[in-house]
């Protein structure tokens, strides 16, 4: 019962500490929001279009970026300096500039040049073929219209309509595109979900690493003094602290899960499976807290080293950049962190409709992590406390 | 010390002269017209309970608190928040342990020495001296977070002595100190006074004020309620000294003989001796004993009980001094 009281005190302390609340609850949700906003547009290419006077042909060319299988994000510029700036700073992946009186000049039979601007070495070079293809499609129409005008009379501008009419009736000469394979990030994970999963894992662990204050104080103040002042056994304090950290981790995880699904529509997948992963990961966090409590010399030290260690582990575990983007060696290293396993489980639940049974491997690994951490902590505490 | 010792009561200009000091925080008046002087070699005690205005008064005297009114002069120079140079004559020992726990005693001293313009060999020599004075010479290289409470208190005082101030201000320097360290601290304050330093000493411990202070100001609710030597203050209360004589002989006869003496208010036989209520027991003791001897008494022990500041304080404020 005393252990429960100590556990409850942990939760109450969290509720009273305003900074704690910011870092434990608000910050992860804020990050979920900002990351979600960043990638709400997906990873589709961004093109900057500089056009002061595009006319109907120009408008048609610009609109053709929207009809691509995965539409590009377009930003329109009228100022040349701003357009170059955007390319140089990477606000857009590539830029095209239509010459003045684009429509008028093409219809009058004049040849025009479109400027294509990329920053060297970037993804923009790869985009060039797509831009060339869209321009070529329009050039084909204009070219045909001019040919017709030359052969049969009339102006190129007027002949455009004939060309378009005939084009619609001609048998298809086309490129068909299909996809194959299984998506690494199913659509369900995009938007806010990927970010919410990462932040949950990152912050539950961070809070655990920095929160073992009571245990550290108990250790450094000297257990005998502690026991004299309150008739509480060492084992009770340890169990209470463990339960307390577990309760804090679980509460934090629950808040993030509920808030993110209500506010941002984040998908967490099958309830039992998600609960199993979250509980197992909270146990890992509590185990890590005990280990920190067993080795740190003072709360301030646990605070600063906990933050740094938590962020490094989180990064390695794929909380900041998905581990799918890592080089192969780092992907293997990543598997040594509990973060990677928790994320794996959560992604399987949300993205691939995995069930409770399906995430048992990940849950098993997490429980093993928790057992090892707790074992190390108890072993270390026994050495310290029985000295 | 370079200062020549000054005999008490000499008419040399005072080291500290302050008058009509005032400070209010919002609607609460903390200090309300406090003023006093301290001469070289004199130890002045500011005695009062917690919250009486002692620390506020001291902060204004040291020029670290903006005052609402009044004047402060130390060694003839006006002191204020905006006049840093005038503070060079003051050695301030705050009530808090104002030392850096993560630095050694020597590093603490060296830092404050530089703030008072001491550096190089002169600073090192003076640091050795003050470490001697407070008896920390052998622990000077240790970080102060490894010190005992008493050692920290002593270092706290040592910092205030570094620049050989004309006026040393000690704000409750013995709070939370074990009896042994306390005795050592009181002894060094006595020694400093003997060497000619003017000392302002606040305390709410009666026995410290009685032991150290040449003059005492009793402060309560931001005002000096009474001021003077211990004797002067006690006479305010109107209480007299008690002399207990352990004696054998004709007690009633002796009592009658003594009762007739000038300065004796009352003389009554008691169990195994006489009890006298007198004025100025110390000044008249020889006369009393002579009369008793003439009356055929054989005196084996004499005890003089003087009324103390505790009683004075109780008389002036209607409250006990201790928290």
């Amino acid at each position, binding site marked *: 019962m005393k252990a429960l009281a100590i556990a409850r005190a942990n939760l109450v302390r969290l509720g009273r500490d305003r*900074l704690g609340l*910011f*870092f434990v609850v608000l910050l992860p949700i804020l990050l979920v929001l*900002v990351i979600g906003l*960043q990638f709400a*547009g997906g990873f589709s*290419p961004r093109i900057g279009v500089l056009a002061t006077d595009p006319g109907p042909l120009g408008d048609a060319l610009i609109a053709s970026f929207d009809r691509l*299988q995965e539409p590009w994000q377009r930003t329109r510029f009228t100022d040349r300096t701003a357009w170059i700036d955007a*390319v*140089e*700073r990477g606000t857009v992946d590539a*830029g095209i500039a239509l010459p003045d009186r684009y429509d008028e000049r093409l219809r009058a039979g004049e*040849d025009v*040049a*479109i400027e*294509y*601007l990329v*920053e*060297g*070495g970037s*993804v923009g070079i*790869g*985009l060039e073929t*797509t831009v060339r*293809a869209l*321009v070529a499609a329009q*050039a084909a129409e*204009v*070219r*045909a*219209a001019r*040919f017709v005008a030359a*052969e049969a009379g009339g102006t190129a501008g007027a*002949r455009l309509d004939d*060309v378009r009419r005939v*084009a619609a009736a*001609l048998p*298809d*000469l086309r*490129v068909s*595109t299909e*996809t194959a394979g299984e998506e690494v990030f199913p659509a369900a994970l995009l938007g806010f979900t990927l970010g919410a999963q990462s932040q949950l894992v990152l912050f539950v662990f961070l809070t655990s690493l920095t929160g073992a204050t009571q245990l550290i104080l108990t250790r450094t103040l000297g257990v005998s003094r502690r026991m004299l002042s309150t008739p509480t056994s060492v084992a009770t304090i340890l169990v209470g602290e463990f339960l307390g950290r577990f309760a804090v981790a679980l509460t934090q995880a629950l808040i993030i899960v509920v808030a993110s699904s209500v506010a941002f529509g984040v998908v967490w997948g099958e309830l039992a499976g998600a609960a199993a992963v979250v509980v197992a990961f909270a146990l890992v966090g509590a185990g890590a807290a005990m280990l920190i409590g067993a080795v740190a010399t003072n709360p301030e*030290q646990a605070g*600063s080293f906990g*933050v*740094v260690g938590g962020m490094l582990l989180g990064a390695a575990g794929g909380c*900041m950049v998905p581990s799918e*983007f*890592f080089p192969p060696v780092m992907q293997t290293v990543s598997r040594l962190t509990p973060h990677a396993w928790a994320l794996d489980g959560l992604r399987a639940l949300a993205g691939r409709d995995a069930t409770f049974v399906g995430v048992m491997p990940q849950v098993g690994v997490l429980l093993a992590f928790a057992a090892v951490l707790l074992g190390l902590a108890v072993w270390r505490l026994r050495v310290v406390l029985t000295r | 010390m370079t200062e020549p010792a000054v005999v008490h009561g000499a008419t040399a200009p005072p080291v500290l002269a302050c008058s009509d000091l005032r400070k209010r925080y919002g609607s609460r008046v903390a200090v309300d017209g406090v003023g006093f002087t301290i001469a070289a070699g004199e130890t002045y005690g500011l005695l009062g309970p917690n919250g009486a205005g002692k620390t506020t008064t001291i*902060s204004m005297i040291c*020029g670290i608190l*903006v005052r609402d009114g009044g004047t402060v002069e130390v060694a003839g120079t006006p002191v204020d928040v905006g006049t840093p140079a005038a503070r060079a004559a003051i050695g301030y020992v*705050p009530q*808090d342990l104002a*030392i*850096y726990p993560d630095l050694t005693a020597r590093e603490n001293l060296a*830092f*404050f020495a*530089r*703030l008072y313009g001491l550096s190089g060999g002169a600073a090192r020599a003076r640091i050795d001296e003050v470490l001697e004075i407070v008896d920390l010479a052998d622990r000077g290289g240790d970080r102060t977070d490894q010190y005992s409470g008493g050692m920290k208190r002593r270092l706290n005082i040592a910092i205030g002595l570094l620049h050989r101030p004309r006026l040393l201000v000690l704000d409750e320097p013995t709070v939370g100190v074990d009896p042994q360290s306390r005795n050592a601290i009181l002894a060094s304050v006595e020694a400093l006074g003997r060497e000619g330093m003017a000392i302002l000493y606040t305390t709410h411990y009666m026995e410290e004020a009685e032991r150290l202070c040449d003059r005492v100001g009793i402060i309560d609710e931001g005002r000096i309620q009474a001021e003077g030597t211990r004797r002067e203050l006690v006479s305010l209360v109107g209480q007299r000294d008690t002399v207990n004589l352990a004696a054998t002989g004709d007690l009633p006869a002796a009592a009658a003989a003594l009762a007739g003496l000038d300065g004796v208010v009352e003389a009554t036989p008691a169990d195994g001796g006489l009890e006298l209520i007198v004025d100025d027991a110390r000044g008249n003791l020889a006369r009393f004993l002579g009369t008793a001897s003439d009356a055929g008494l054989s005196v084996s022990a004499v005890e003089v009980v003087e009324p103390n500041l505790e009683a004075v304080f109780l008389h002036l404020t209607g409250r006990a001094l201790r928290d």
Partner: protein
Amino acid sequence: MRAALAIAAKDLRQRIRDRSAIAIAIVAPFGLAAMFALLIPTGAGAFQVTYAVVDADRGPLAAAFRAGPLAGLVDAGVAELVELPSEAVARDRVAARAVDAAIVIPAGFSDAVVAGVAAEIVVVGNVDANLATQVATSVASGFIDELAAIRLAVATTIVVEGSVPDPARSTELAERAQRTRVPIDIVGTTADSRQAGSATFYAASMAVFFLFFTAQFGVLSLLGERRTGTLSRIAAAPVPAWAIVLGKALATFVLAAGSMTVLVVASSLLLGARWGDPAAVSLLVLGVVVSAMGITALITTLTRTEEQAGNWNSIAAMVLAILGGAFFPVSRGPEFLQQASVLTPHAWFLRGIGDLAPPDAGISAVLVPIAALFAIGIVTGAVGLLRAARIVVGR
């Protein structure tokens, strides 16, 4: 001034003794920057793909397609080509992402085009290789469009003239149409990159993030010394209030600028970061240190206790870093995020470091970021220092 130096020296000595200060100032940002440099492969922005080519047609048009546009991709260094015997094999490879996409020219393609009936080139892309698939599709479309343009020119002429389709006339028209000019040309130019490489970006962003924890120390320690009583002891010495504040600021500046310098040098030597022109980097570092000191001084003086100040400073450090794009670039975010980022030193510092990416960029390239950083620092710092001086003098 001597007193200010004494205070600065004392503060620095205390900070250097405190291992967690070093952890926050140097170990943490360097560790995280190193971690990101490890995690994000260099040249992540480069575009390099592998395509499978299945030529079941073996006709003249297939040969022209392979010799023209496909060979062009290889020459441009964009793609690597793997020849595969059948569409089925190619689909398996694509599914396993052994190749990013397959370009299949079906049997009878050339004949169908010549005969004027429907024909197609098939592109099969891996589901995660969007861009690679799009490029393959575009290359094939460019080739098909040329064929279509001529066919369209011929067909429209015949329709407009109202003549009866005649193979000889069609061939004659087609030959003439082929000789017409393409009316729209594309002129490619390469802009200077004003984006830092990933090692440089993360070294810079982590440095500026943790700088906010280091920069708060001066004014924070004023509050701390007020609590422990050492501040009134310093104030009781013959030292003016401004000298105390100056000493604190000096120590903070040395600590912050020092740890930034260590980070710049260490990330250059160990992580391969390329910061650019040293003089310009120095000015940017000075600017960001001043602005971080200003903002944290202002926040700290608005609070009463060290704990409150620490809390608010941590929150500000986080929020400003997120807005300023220190964790992920804000350029993909919505407009209001990009506008808000202008208020953060993080955004200006990172923008400045990005502007130094072109090899010839010097101080003149980063005058605006430098000015913005100093402006933020001077405005917030002036208010902060005035308020800090009031902490020193009791009121």
